């Protein structure tokens, strides 16, 4: 039994198709992140799961129940919003107990749950304050607490950290991870921040245009992106794309005048292709003064960006810009001629027409 299961879900606003025949299964206790650029439908999907939007077709199952047409509160979900969405006129306690009171829970049970949430989230001293008197981080904690007291199996997070500053964001990120470890609930988490996605998720669903492009664990998403979009969306700086063609029965990649041997490629049958894209992450390229053994390309240094732990080298390669992550070894002046060593085993090769990984 899946914890959350989306079957052939689609959603149209008039003639506009927002979600297209979507399928998604989330396991019990799993942390799934919906990741994508704004407008990709990730928040919309979450709202559908929560029952805040009526879907056009398909089914939604939560904990083995068809909840497609159930009220949000009947679905066994808790939800945390980007803007916290705390009721301004109620105290923190009032915010936590509002839903429980509606559900008609006995008083002592409510007390118990509030106490537990307060302990877990360390918001005990804030219980009698109003949201207006809380800091951003505190508000977000209360917002999580409101989902927590519902004692539900599935937590839905709608970009819960976007309104926080960078430092607080990373702190709360860790805390959410800890919370997940501690509670073991199923969590569906929407974000456009790939760091959040990669750090938090058991599995990431990368979305674009109302379609899940790839659903996999962070490692796979990062290393074996299923198509050009995922490859380009994940990773910072983004993956380098070399446009060329696959030749010699797929054993080599021709890039301009250069021939790159593909024998080490970890993928499907390549074959000859008129237009192909070779994707290489910045850390999968090495920089050498002379041509190294294995596949390599000559290039010229443009900018050397020192990031502290490592450097980003921006190079020119046949008029194309390439970024490489290298250990800090003194600055390379602009114009230095170098050779790039390519780790083909970790590269991704895409068909240029279908944009799919080969």
């Amino acid at each position, binding site marked *: 039994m899946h914890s959350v299961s989306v079957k052939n879900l689609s959603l149209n606003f008039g003639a506009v198709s927002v979600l297209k025949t979507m399928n998604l299964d989330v396991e019990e206790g799993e942390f799934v992140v919906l990741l994508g650029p704004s407008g990709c439908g990730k928040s919309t999907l979450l709202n559908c799961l929560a029952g805040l939007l009526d879907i056009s077709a398909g089914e939604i199952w939560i904990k083995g129940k068809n909840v497609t047409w159930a*009220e*949000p*509160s009947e679905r066994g979900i808790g939800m945390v919003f*980007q803007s916290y*969405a705390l009721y*301004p006129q109620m105290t923190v306690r009032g915010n936590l107990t*509002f839903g429980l009171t509606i*559900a008609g829970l006995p008083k002592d049970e409510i007390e118990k749950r509030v106490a537990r949430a307060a302990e877990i989230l360390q918001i005990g001293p804030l219980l009698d304050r109003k949201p207006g008197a809380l800091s951003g981080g505190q508000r977000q904690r209360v917002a999580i607490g409101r989902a927590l007291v519902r004692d539900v199996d599935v937590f839905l997070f709608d970009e819960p950290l976007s309104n926080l500053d960078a430092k607080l964001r990373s702190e709360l990120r860790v805390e959410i991870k800890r919370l997940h470890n501690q509670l073991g609930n199923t969590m569906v988490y929407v974000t456009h921040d790939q760091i959040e996605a990669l750090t938090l998720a058991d599995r990431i669903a990368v979305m674009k245009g109302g379609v899940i492009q790839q659903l996999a664990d962070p490692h796979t998403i990062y290393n074996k992106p299923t198509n050009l979009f995922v490859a380009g969306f994940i990773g910072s700086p983004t993956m380098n794309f070399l446009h060329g063609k696959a030749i010699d029965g797929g054993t080599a990649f021709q890039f301009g005048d250069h021939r790159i041997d593909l024998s080490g490629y970890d993928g499907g049958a390549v074959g000859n292709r008129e237009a192909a894209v070779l994707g290489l992450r910045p850390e999968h390229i090495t920089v050498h003064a002379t041509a190294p053994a294995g596949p390599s390309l000559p290039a010229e240094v443009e900018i050397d960006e020192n990031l502290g732990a490592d450097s980003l080298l921006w190079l020119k390669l046949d008029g194309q810009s390439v970024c490489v992550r290298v250990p800090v070894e003194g600055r390379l002046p602009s114009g230095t001629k170098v050779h790039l060593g390519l780790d083909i085993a970790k590269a991704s090769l895409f068909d240029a027409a279908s944009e799919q990984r080969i």
Partner: protein
Amino acid sequence: MTAMSSASTVTPNGAKPKPMFAPGRVLIYTLLIVTSIYYLIPLYVMVITSLKDLDQIREGNIFIPTMKPTFDAWIKAWSAACTGLNCTGLAPGFWNSVFITIPSVIVSIAVASISGYTLANWPFKFAEWCFTILLVGSFIPYQVFLYPLVIITREMGIYSTLYAVIFVHTVFGLPILTLLFRNYFASLPEELFKAARVDGAGYWRIFFNVLMPMSLPIFSVAVILQVTGIWNDFLFGVIYAGPTNYPMTVQLNNIVNSLQGVKEYNVEMAATILTGLVPLTIYFLSGKYFVRGIAAGAVKG
């Protein structure tokens, strides 16, 4: 940001304060005072006239203050001016106006706020079409509706009762109030509404427990607009409320519009001020909330 904090951000944000007597300041205050005089002159004329006796009015200039102020006109307007055979002044109509105004204000605001809430948070196509028609309808002269409303209220079985006049005020208050409420509720964070739904709150609980406590500003605007409009209404009160419920404006009309006899301008003016006293008081007391509420309701669309 929560809506409460947004509603209270009515603070000046023009230039920084400058010394009182800088040339620019002097110009600003001069302009403000000159325009104030334009706005105050009619009130001044009304008050001065109401304090004169008829001879002073006939001889004098309307702008010249009286040396011998008398409240006779006020007393007559309140308790002795005649409406046909009933020489009871405005006083008896006052309570009728109160009994018409209070329920009409409550019902019209209830209907409009719920309609605005539905349009903002639970929209459905049909309701939105209705709203469009309502807005167009707000441009039709009232008089066009008089006969149809007589028939409608007759068929509803409420013609010539308090219910009919409440209904009519609800009808005519609906367009602009619904617009205000709809804009206001749409300006509240949508996530708050979603959070409440996840918490299991239904249509009414969200309205009463979540949104209404945040909506004091817009409700105060609605109350001010409706009290003013309904209190000043003559036509609907006299046509739909039935003779036992005639509002104060009927007596005012009788005092002001009497064709024959000597025109008692002082009594007319006193009666006018007395009738306008309720809405005027509300404006004087709550002008600040009115501006705040407008800021919250009309500004964000």
